[in-house]
């Protein structure tokens, strides 16, 4: 007996018709189940995926809205005149560009206050390449000063000059007899890009910052209100930094 022959299935048209007639009532339920599976794969799963994506989006947008609301409440709670005055003071303390007039005024003021006579002085501007102006780099104007006065007065001069606007750092002191020389760096820093989006997050000043603001306000100030170069408002789409040294 040939076993292989017995396993052969004859799928001709007549057999198919017989099978169709026999199972045609099952076709509809089968089709419905297949259609349901397709709906699950192609509609429900993407919808569920979209739900989770939308949830993330809602969360992100809610955070953005909260930040905007915080910005708005902070801005409405601030006094226009106080902000303008603070900005003016801070711009005198840290000018946006080299402030030769401010430096000379500061030296003259401290000289008169401490009874020290200022002799020759010499400015040097250091590295003026763009990389020295961005990020946390602080460009400075270096000045070598010759002073006449007793040691105590010259020491007082260094004490006062670092508490005078614009912000300065004394890097070397040389006192001998009735004369002395100082090397002082006067810092400046260009303002950031003026193309500031209203969506940028702002926060109230911290206690430390408020304390610093108070301290700086108590510094000697020779500059007049409105003198420092404060960037124009509203924002423009200009270059990345303002207050270019040139």
């Amino acid at each position: 007996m040939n076993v292989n022959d017995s396993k052969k299935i004859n799928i001709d048209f007549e057999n198919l018709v017989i099978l169709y007639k026999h199972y045609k009532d099952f076709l509809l339920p089968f089709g419905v189940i297949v259609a349901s599976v397709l709906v699950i794969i192609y509609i429900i799963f993407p919808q569920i995926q979209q739900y989770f994506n939308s949830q993330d989006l809602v969360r992100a947008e809610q955070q953005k809205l909260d930040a905007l609301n915080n910005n708005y409440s902070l801005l409405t709670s601030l006094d226009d005149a106080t902000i303008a005055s603070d900005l003016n003071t801070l711009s005198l303390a840290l000018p946006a560009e080299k402030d030769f007039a401010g430096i000379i005024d500061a030296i003259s003021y401290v000289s008169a206050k401490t009874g020290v006579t200022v002799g020759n002085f010499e400015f040097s501007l250091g590295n003026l390449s763009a990389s020295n102006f961005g990020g946390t780099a602080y460009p400075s104007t270096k000045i070598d000063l010759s002073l006449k006065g007793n040691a105590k007065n010259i020491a007082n001069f260094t004490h006062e000059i670092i508490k005078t606007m614009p912000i300065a750092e004394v890097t070397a002191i040389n006192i001998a007899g009735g004369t002395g020389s100082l090397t002082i760096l006067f810092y400046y820093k260009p303002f950031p890009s003026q193309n500031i989006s209203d969506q940028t997050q702002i926060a109230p000043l911290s206690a430390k910052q408020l304390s610093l603001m108070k301290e700086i306000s108590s510094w000697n100030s020779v500059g007049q209100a409105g003198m420092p170069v404060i960037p124009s408002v509203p924002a423009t789409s200009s270059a990345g930094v303002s207050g270019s040294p040139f």
Partner: protein
Amino acid sequence: MSDSINLVSPKNEQLEKEQNRLRIARVVAFSVMFLVAAVAVLVFVVNLTLPINSIKRSEEVTLSNIAALHKKFVQYYFVQDRINHLTNVIEKRNKVSDVVDAFLAITPDDLSIGSMQIDVKKFSLIMSGGSLVSMNKFIDDVTILSQKKNIIQNVVVQQLSLDVKNNKYSISIQADIK
């Protein structure tokens, strides 16, 4: 020949089984269909009810409110910028002025500073005066300054001399700035 007569045809039994299967298949199919339809509608409705549009509308309203305060916004932004930079500059400033202040504070009135040289790392001072007691007190105060305050270290008294002609003591001190 068999005595018994089979009244239930095996064909009918088979047919009944098939009809049962068909009924189950139909119930399952339509249950699945309704379940899938219900879930699809539910997910669709849930997606529709997510408040993304209302949040975006609120954002637009808030942004337009902020836009009306743009000048104040930019000024405040610059205030923060200046304060941050001033904080950085003050933190990185060297201690030259602090050293001067500290030495001025401990210098007795009857001693005078002959010379003082300070740079970022080194400090040297020559003091003179007629009182050895004051000189001694000054040395004690310098020692305390180097031990307690975080300003100078490695204090070396290089010379303590007496100028007999002028009856003046002179002291030379060197230190490293911390």
